[in-house]
């Protein structure tokens, strides 16, 4: 499955892009996390979360949506 990932805040500086399309062979969040850490080792330093359809997804859940977002720690207010 091809997914589109948007990178927010400091994450877009690590990935050097605001979004990209990635091909997934396995569809758990933890699989995508492992893939991203291989592609961007500097992501290790950031406590990021993955969101799908406007909701944070935990590691063991599956990805069922094409549009994903990778979120660094929040800093509103």
């Amino acid at each position, binding site marked *: 499955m091809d997914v589109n990932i948007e990178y*927010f805040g400091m994450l877009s500086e690590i990935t050097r892009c605001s979004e990209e399309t990635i091909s997934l062979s396995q569809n758990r969040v933890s699989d995508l996390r492992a893939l991203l850490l291989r592609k961007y080792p500097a992501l290790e330093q950031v406590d990021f979360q993955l969101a799908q*359809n*406007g909701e944070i997804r935990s590691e063991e859940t599956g990805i069922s949506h094409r549009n994903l977002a990778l979120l660094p720690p929040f800093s*509103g207010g």
Partner: protein
Amino acid sequence: MSEHNNVFKTGAISSEFIGSAIAKHQSKTEIGAHGIFLGQVRADAVGGKTVTAIEYTAYEEMATQKFHEIRESALTKFNLTCLHTYHSLGLVKAGAVCLFVLASATSRKEVCRAVAYIVDEIKAGVPIFGKELFGDASHRWKVNR
């Protein structure tokens, strides 16, 4: 309960906007107390440099939903007549306001606690990202504590 307008404002939230939001509630004569929180961009000193502005971005799809959930939760927990929340997107200079929460009720008991609750929830749960700009081309990413 008044309808909720769009939470996000482009750039700083002006003192005129805040004054006008207060004025609009003077026709609601069942209100006896307003609690307000304003978040203001601080000119923090970081290693010899000073923050001159924060540039805010958000994962808007989720942020809008989270603001809605926080609003509903606050209305359930506290006995409020009115509740308005505004947050800046884009550039906000040091000294300017980036967050405005206005909670109104018949009496004072609830409004201060409601405002504190809403601000805590926004800081912890809404995907907004602040890029602290220094006077030169450098920057630092803000992290809430």
